[in-house]
């Protein structure tokens, strides 16, 4: 069974304190790994897609990396507005049909 595990569950950082979030996965044939941001009471907001080991993507203070077993979301010098839950999801295909399997998320709080 495909599994996605995110750690830590929650992370509190001081403004400007860099850190990394982890997403480890066990899937039969990874087609893609996605990072989403979710604010309370809102839908997931797309951040990145990574398709192959070694790939990296950057957006403002965020950088996502991918290995064969896990992905990291690095946050550099975060600001309070980066506070949100960050979701990792893997793309699974089944006879041409696609679905995302999500992890439980990391709730990030940036303290001013």
């Amino acid at each position, binding site marked *: 069974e495909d599994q996605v595990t995110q750690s830590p569950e929650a992370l509190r950082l001081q403004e400007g304190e860099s850190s990394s979030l982890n997403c480890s996965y066990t899937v039969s044939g990874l087609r893609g790994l996605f990072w989403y941001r979710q604010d309370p009471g809102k*839908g997931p907001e*797309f951040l990145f897609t990574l398709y192959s080991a070694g790939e990296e993507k950057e957006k403002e203070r965020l950088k996502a990396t991918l290995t064969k077993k896990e992905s990291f979301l690095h946050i550099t010098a975060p600001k309070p507005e980066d506070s949100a839950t960050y979701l990792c999801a893997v793309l699974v295909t089944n006879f041409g049909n696609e679905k995302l399997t999500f*992890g439980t998320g990391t709730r990030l709080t940036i303290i001013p």
Partner: protein
Amino acid sequence: EPEVTQTPSHQVTQMGQEVILRCVPISNHLYFYWYRQILGQKVEFLVSFYNNEISEKSEIFDDQFSVERPDGSNFTLKIRSTKLEDSAMYFCASSEALYTEGSTEAFFGQGTRLTVV
């Protein structure tokens, strides 16, 4: 910027009642999805829909659930006889193509919070 629109934002219903959750996907998108998120838990896939039929459904999507695209713009999720455990946030998503065909993201709506009492 185009967006997926869901209505209502919050629905309270009595156990055993039927509910219909509505979604307006982005206009040129062809693939539609419903996901749900029970409070404090992860986002879970329910069903995907393409070319007016279900492409795939999860084990959660049992006979109580159905989806429909009644016209060219709406995409609905119906729960025939709601149970307490159906209480969750339901998200609609749409994408222009399959990820493996070059689409890079599915756009999610803001969700409908369903509370069954």
